[in-house]
């Protein structure tokens, strides 16, 4: 008979087989057998968070910066409910997470036992799939399947709920057999005819635009390379969603910057005026499209996506290509090069008028702001941070709010997996724990959380994690003493009634840093900013950087609620003529 292992041992056997090197977690009664087993598995290191939400976001940061799934381990009841925000965040942004939760023993399930909750019930809508393992025989199979579901197709979080008795029960373990597909589900559904149609559209277009998204990053490094090749081979302009930043170099001349609610004037106008839109791994999210019935009215729309349910969900498209973007791009480039070896040159005159138009939009310089000698403008702070760190292969995470948008606008990424932000769910408190995970995955790299003072307080306790594991993350707070994004909307929509958006009684962040055992730095004037940033970069310990910025700066450009892409607010002076009216006010 083959050797018998306890459920807890089987959990680790599975994790080892899957090549897991880090677990982010927090112990409790219902997972103690698993924690007890930890000591016997030296290749797997456990990172103790200070809150299960923090563990979840750290695992997300780990996953997004490494391309590997993030592993979370939590106890039953409150451990499981605390991780729900991170699971939902990962679900919205397609981040592969495998969450293992403890559960009360099987004979107590349904009795309202101590720390019992319906974990699979609660997490059903925020995971790709979840399992309650009720039989030790199913444990290994289930965990391996969980990894497969999390990492294949459109990635996402999964959860395996393991009752405590199952962790003690014994069963044999057989090594992981690589399966080809789940349930007969493959991911490339496109045909050569689809590619031919795409090429026909490419050749015909006079006003093309490529709109790329997080799918390119999720597809892997190869996809980003192919995207660059594709843009190069076509000579087309390219814009990116928030999640797609870094797939294409942010400082390249064919790149129009980010699109959407706070996207550039040229990107949004090009989206509005194009005759061909090639969506590569993005999902026509409402922050991107603005008013949907006036969205890009005259274009043929092509949508390349691995998730069939993304097609025609928000925007009807003319050509759907369901598949992995790397595979689709590879095929398209090959065919195009075969048919027209020198397409980008031969096609130049075809789209030269379009490029002229784009240059005109560009010359508006929509990211411009009025700088100041007295106070630090938040945009200026991000720009200086970029200039002083761009040669360092820096990893940036963010919280949610104005600072997040300024980071997206002014920090230029030239590699994938360097930009971690909560886009779909917009979770304040994401960036600090995510930075912990990023630093774990990238030990010698510079990792900076561009933060807002309100957001960062939501998961500040994870500074303690950073100190414990000597993770020299940098928390760069653009401190405007306001929930700035809320204040901005109240200014635009609610007659400057700044209801509850001022953050009174803020802690002294420098002292707070010291209390955590890390380093606090404060910058008050534009003059001292560079020196302080350099001091931060040169500090080989976790830093909280309190950057006191202009308190009333707003984030522009902006597509106001209820408006299409071609009606952007460019700056403070532009507000009057373009006031948000009527139903636009009720939108979020």
């Amino acid at each position: 008979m083959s050797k018998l292992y306890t459920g807890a041992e089987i959990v680790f056997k599975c994790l080892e087989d899957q090549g897991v090197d880090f677990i982010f977690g927090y112990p409790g009664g219902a997972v103690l057998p698993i924690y007890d087993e930890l000591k016997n598995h030296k290749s797997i290191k456990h990172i103790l968070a200070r809150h299960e939400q923090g563990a979840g976001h750290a695992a997300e940061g780990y996953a997004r910066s490494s391309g590997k799934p993030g592993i979370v381990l939590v106890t039953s009841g409150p451990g499981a409910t605390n991780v729900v925000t991170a699971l939902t965040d990962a679900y919205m942004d397609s981040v592969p997470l495998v969450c293992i939760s403890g559960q009360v023993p099987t004979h107590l399930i349904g009795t309202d036992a101590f720390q019992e909750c319906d974990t699979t019930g609660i997490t059903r809508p925020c995971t790709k799939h979840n399992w309650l393992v009720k039989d030790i025989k199913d444990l290994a199979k289930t965990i391996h399947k969980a990894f497969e579901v999390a990492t294949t197709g459109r990635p996402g979080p999964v959860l395996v709920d393991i009752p405590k008795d199952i962790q003690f029960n014994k069963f044999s373990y057989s090594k992981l057999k690589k399966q080809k597909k789940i349930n007969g589900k493959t991911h490339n559904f496109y045909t050569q005819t689809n590619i031919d149609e795409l090429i026909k559209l490419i050749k015909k277009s006079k006003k093309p635009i490529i709109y790329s998204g997080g799918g390119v990053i999720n597809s892997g490094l190869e996809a980003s390379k192919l995207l660059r090749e594709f843009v190069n081979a076509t000579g087309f302009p390219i814009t990116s969603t928030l999640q797609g930043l870094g797939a294409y170099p942010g400082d390249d001349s064919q790149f129009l910057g980010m699109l959407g609610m706070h996207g550039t004037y040229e990107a949004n106008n090009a989206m509005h005026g194009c005759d061909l839109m090639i969506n590569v791994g993005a999902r026509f999210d409402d922050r991107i499209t603005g008013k949907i019935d006036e969205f890009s009215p005259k274009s043929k729309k092509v949508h390349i996506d691995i998730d069939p349910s993304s097609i025609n969900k928000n925007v009807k498209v003319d050509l759907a290509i369901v598949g992995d973007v790397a595979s689709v791009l590879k095929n398209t480039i090959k065919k195009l090069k075969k048919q027209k070896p020198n397409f980008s040159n031969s096609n130049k005159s075809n789209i030269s008028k379009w490029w002229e138009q784009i240059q005109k939009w560009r010359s508006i310089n929509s990211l411009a702001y009025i700088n100041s000698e007295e106070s630090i403008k938040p945009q200026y702070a991000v720009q200086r941070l970029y200039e002083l760190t761009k040669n360092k292969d820096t990893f940036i995470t963010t919280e949610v709010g104005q600072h997040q948008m300024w980071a997206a606008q002014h920090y230029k990424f030239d590699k994938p997996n360097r930009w971690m932000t909560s886009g779909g769910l917009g979770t304040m408190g994401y960036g600090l724990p995510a930075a912990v995970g990023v630093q774990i995955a990238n030990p010698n790299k510079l990792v900076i959380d561009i933060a807002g003072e309100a957001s960062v307080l939501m998961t500040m306790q994870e500074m303690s994690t950073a100190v414990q594991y000597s993770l020299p993350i940098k928390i760069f707070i653009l401190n405007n003493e306001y929930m700035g994004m809320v204040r901005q909307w109240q200014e635009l929509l609610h007659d400057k009634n700044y209801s509850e958006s001022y953050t009174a009684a803020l802690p002294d962040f420098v002292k707070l840093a010291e209390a955590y055992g890390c380093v606090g730095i404060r910058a008050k004037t534009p003059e001292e900013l560079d020196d302080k940033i350099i001091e931060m970069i040169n500090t080989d310990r976790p830093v909280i950087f309190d950057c006191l910025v202009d308190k009333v700066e707003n984030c522009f450009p902006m597509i106001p609620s209820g408006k299409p892409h071609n009606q952007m607010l460019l700056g403070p002076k532009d507000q009057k003529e373009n006031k948000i009216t009527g139903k636009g006010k009720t939108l979020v």
Partner: protein
Amino acid sequence: MSKARSAYSISGKKEKFDTHIIVVWVDNEAGVLARIAGLFSGRGYNIESLAVAEVDKKLNISRITIVTTGTPQVVNQIRLQLKKLVPVHNVADFKREDKRVIFKEMALLKIVGKNEKRDKALKACKKFNPVILDKTNKSFVIQITALRREIDKMIVDLKKFGLVSVSRTGAVAMTRGAEIFK
């Protein structure tokens, strides 16, 4: 006020709602019905009726028949979202008007009253394959199979003949002819 309904709604123009019958083959495992029902409620889709039972003991497969209404775009989303669920093997989708498919519901009707009234009730059910499942000198339990709207109408019509209780299933569906769904 701007004429736009909403900037982030799917479409400003009203699209026609159709009734669709969606057949789903799933692993017969704990929680699978909750996943399906949760998908519908979570995404704001309609469920008019739902019928489910295991159809293949060996493969452990259940067949779920869901009647839903929605615009073509929404029904398409329902189909694609269902397909993404891990325990779902296959999804078929038909318009209610589809002539190639038979839809049927079953109802149990309890009639209480005098003999002649009960006979009238039974007569009224004639078209819908009535079977008397239980009989006392005061009551009948009649089983009928029919379309949803036919049963709706019977329920109204039988009130006057002493209908006191109704229990009905959701619709189940089957293709006509030798063809099968899969």
